């Protein structure tokens, strides 16, 4: 992974972790705050309900007191004290009085618990009312379950007594706890009140109401009701109304008991969790948005920072590559004074010093080469010149001392002179040839073909009877890539290597020409089974004019190295004393040069 990507990943990860941590923290805090607010709101609502309940109780008690003090109740009490009342006269008394006092329940009852008039059940006149739960006239209102013609209802009741004679008249009035009662509760947004009228064991959906009447999906409430029926203790339960989490509702169930502590009803305070879920979703959305924006910013910032940091490094790398490729003039321009700027300056100083040292080295090598050339020339020229000098001196001496033999000596000396002059010309010709090495003309070349041509050329020579026994083996790999090369120069280079190998085996041996492909590189190996070379010889082998042979010029391997180098390849030697020598040529495909060669070929073809 490149440095820029690493930097980007680090930045993005940092931003992401930060956003997630912040979002989680906010979400957690929000949940706790919501739970706390929920508890507070529920507690407030329960307190409000109890307050409303007490207010209603006081209101009911006040209304019942008003009824007890009314003229109708007085008249009824007086009639009661005079004997059995006329039920017909009071049939509608309770109902009309209840209507006036806005009471849902009202009954006038004599001291024998006989109903004289009933608002909620007018036809019940003359029947007995169950008053066993009233040991003494309670001052405050209380919950009571009232039997009605069409069932039963829960109400908030108050009792007052009218004592005008020996037979007291009881006035029992109340208000129904129903959906209107629930609707009168001032509920905060997101909260609702439900009420379950506990008329028996188990759960009956028709007894569960809210402000709109019946409650949808009452079966979800049933477990709460059953739990409360068993424990009669306030509970809080989370109800899942649907798969949508926003529909969840936290429900507090509060038991409502009568004077005999019997569970008469259950108040259910529902608190929607939708606000919390929506808030949490908003936090998540904000976190996602922030995370996305942070990552985007991280990309941009890391790109900018990486570019700021890596551009000088890339420039340095590019310059180093140029130096490696031979351009020692490469310089890096980084206008900063930090460590990178110092590094760039150091690099530039290094290249400048390398360049200077190379110049010195080239100068030294050039001087050395000239010296070597002069030494070689002197050596090469000295050998023919010495016989020439001796021959001329012999001629002069023969003319002076033996004129009769001069002619014979002259003939012999002329032959010698001509031979040595020819030798000088050959020496000069080889030097001239080395100086005129041509540039390779690239074309598509099958290396195996070149090697086969060389082998074929020398096999005929090796099979000659006068020649020592040298076996020539060709080990060619198939397939070999086509490479761009100059086949003539390669042929010449290989020929030089083969000649060297033959010279290295004066007693005969085996000459092996081998090709192989390794990736984009093609290899040619020329091996002999001669005496081999010492490591010192191997080091100096490719130095021009170095030769280990008595009649060599030292230019053969230099020419080979020059050819291979012009092809972008390398030549190396592997030898062990007594075990022969192997020259290894490594040639690239030169695809670029191949395209150039093809284009040139096409252009030539088009021109024709």
């Amino acid at each position, binding site marked *: 992974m490149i440095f820029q990507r690493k930097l980007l990943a680090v930045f993005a990860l940092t931003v992401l972790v930060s956003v997630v941590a912040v979002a989680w923290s906010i979400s957690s805090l929000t949940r706790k705050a919501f739970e706390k607010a929920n508890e507070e709101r529920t507690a407030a609502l329960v307190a409000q309900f109890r307050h409303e309940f007490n207010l209603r109780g006081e209101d009911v008690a006040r209304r019942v007191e008003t009824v007890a003090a009314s003229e109708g109740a007085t008249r009824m009490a007086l009639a009661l004290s005079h004997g059995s009342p006329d039920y017909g006269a009071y049939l509608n008394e309770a109902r009309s009085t209840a209507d006036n006092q806005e009471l849902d329940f009202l009954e006038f009852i004599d001291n024998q618990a006989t109903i004289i008039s009933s608002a909620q059940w007018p036809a019940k006149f003359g029947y007995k009312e169950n008053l066993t739960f009233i040991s003494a006239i309670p001052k405050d209102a209380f919950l009571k379950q009232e039997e009605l*013609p069409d069932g039963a209802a829960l109400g908030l009741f108050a009792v007052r007594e009218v004592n005008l004679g020996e037979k007291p008249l009881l006035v029992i009035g109340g208000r129904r706890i129903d959906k209107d009662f629930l609707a009168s509760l001032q509920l905060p947004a997101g909260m609702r009140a439900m009420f379950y009228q506990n008329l028996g064991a188990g759960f009956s959906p028709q007894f569960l109401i809210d402000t709109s009447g019946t409650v949808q999906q009452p079966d979800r409430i049933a477990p709460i009701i059953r739990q409360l029926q068993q424990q009669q203790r306030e509970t809080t339960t989370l109800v899942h109304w649907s798969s949508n989490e926003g529909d969840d509702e936290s429900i507090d169930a509060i038991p409502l008991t009568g004077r005999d502590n019997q569970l008469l009803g259950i108040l259910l305070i529902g608190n929607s969790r939708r606000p919390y879920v929506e808030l949490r979703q908003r936090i998540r959305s904000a976190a996602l948005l922030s995370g996305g924006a942070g990552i985007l910013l991280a990309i941009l910032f890391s790109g900018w920072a990486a570019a700021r940091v890596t551009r000088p490094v890339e420039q340095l790398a590019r310059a180093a590559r140029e130096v490696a490729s031979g351009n020692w003039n490469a310089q890096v321009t980084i206008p900063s004074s930090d460590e990178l700027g110092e590094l760039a300056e150091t690099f530039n100083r290094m290249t400048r010093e390398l360049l200077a040292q190379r110049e010195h080295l080239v100068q030294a090598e050039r001087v050395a080469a000239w010296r070597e050339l002069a030494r070689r020339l002197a050596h090469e020229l000295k050998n023919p010149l010495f016989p020439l000098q001796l021959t001329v001196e012999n001629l002069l001496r023969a003319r002076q001392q033996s004129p009769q033999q001069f002619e014979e000596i002259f003939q012999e000396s002329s032959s010698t002179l001509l031979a040595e002059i020819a030798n000088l010309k050959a020496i000069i010709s080889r030097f001239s040839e080395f100086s005129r090495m041509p540039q390779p003309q690239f074309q598509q070349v099958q290396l195996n073909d070149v090697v086969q041509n060389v082998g074929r050329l020398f096999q005929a020579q090796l099979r000659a009877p006068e020649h020592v026994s040298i076996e020539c083996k060709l080990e060619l790999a198939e397939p070999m890539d086509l490479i761009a090369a100059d086949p003539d120069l390669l042929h010449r280079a290989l020929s030089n290597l083969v000649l060297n190998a033959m010279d290295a085996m004066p007693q005969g041996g085996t000459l092996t020409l081998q090709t192989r492909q390794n990736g984009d590189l093609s290899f040619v190996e020329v091996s002999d089974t001669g005496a081999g070379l010492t490591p010192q010889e191997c080091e100096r082998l490719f130095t021009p004019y170095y030769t280990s042979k008595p009649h060599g010029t030292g230019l053969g391997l230099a020419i080979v190295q020059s050819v291979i180098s012009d092809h972008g390849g390398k030549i190396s030697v592997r030898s062990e004393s007594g075990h022969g020598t192997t020259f290894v040529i490594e040639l690239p495909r030169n695809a670029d040069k191949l395209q150039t060669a093809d284009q040139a070929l096409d252009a030539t073809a088009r021109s024709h």
Partner: protein
Amino acid sequence: VASSLVCILDASAVARPHYGGTLHVEMRAAPTSLDPADSNQPNWIESRNLFSLIFDTLVSLDEYGKPEPALASSWQAEPGSQRWQFFLRHRATFQDGASVTPDAVAASLRRTNPTWKVFSEGEAVIIERDSPAPNLPAELTLPRNSIAKREGGKISGTGPFAVSQWDPGKKLLLAARDDYWDGRAFLDTIDIAMGKSLREQLISFDLGKAQVIEIAPEQAHRAVAEGRHVESSSPVELIALVFSRDPRAPDDGRQRQALALSIDRELLNTVVLQGGGEPGGGLLPNWMTGYGFLFPASIDLGLARQVRGEIPHTTSWTLGYDPADPTARVIAERIALNARDAGLGMQIASTSTTDLRLVRIPLISLDPQIALGELAAGLGLPPSKSTFASVDELYGAENKLLQSQRVIPLLHLRTAYGVSNTVKNWRMARDGSWRLSDVWLAAEKP
């Protein structure tokens, strides 16, 4: 002396009948048709009274249920009482001025009685029945047999008043006919407002906006106590429990018997209805038949429980009532309580699909035979024969209807009207029918 003479003359002038004035009447009923043959109209007592102002029947009944001449001056039956001849009164005309002819009368009767053979023969109207019909004159007193002429969608009667304005279900304005065969009514017009609740009527009455209003039977006692003038009829409206089907099994019949025994009719009458009716165990009131007391009407809770105890498994019934009638609800609730005392389960409901219903059915005729037949038809009971030779036969027929255990009679209610003191010569038949032809209005005292 002079001033005393003037006062006497003035007093006699106030007490003397005189023509003119408008009688304002209010009623709960809201009929949408004035055609007595319209079988879709409820059989309200008020509708009958309205028809009697606009239409005549060939025969009417007197106070004792005896037929007397009306549009027909006389009639006679041929032996076997299958063919009857009715001779029309001369000078009788319809409200559009056309004379009442035998053909017109025959056409009117054929419309309401398609099974009868009715035709004119000279000055007489001939009615031929498939079977002997000795009670045909009483049958002709039913409102549906009122004589009417129907032409071009308009209906015209021969009654003492003609329709001046008709807003169906809301208002009816009648004007006295000068050419009425029995003489012009004292009143000039009668203004009838319909669809008024009892409370609205009472307010109008107390404000002097209405001179004749309905009073609920249970309110009559109180209305009198509060100083209003109340005219009540004999008990003419039956309150009964009607089962939706015949008993399925003997136990079902015994359960019905237990229910009938458990109901305290007396307490219903005295408390719930404030004495506005009479407890009764029969379909027809005792004043009409004279044998009504023979049907047990008193509560016998012990026997009810005993009968209940003989039933291994009882059915819990639903008792329906008219939700628009608050008294009916109280009666239904009381019956449910009584039933519970006897060990019977019963729930009240205001729906129509119940096991039994509390119904109120008016007696449509003063003739007991006609009344019983109409009552049986109204209750959905099997029809009884319409002619009885004796009271014994009538008793037997009624007893048979009761033995079917489809109906449990409870009470017979009176019809009561609040009548203003300015309304003079107010007369009402025992069945609650108005006799407004002779009513006149006294001048209001300043």
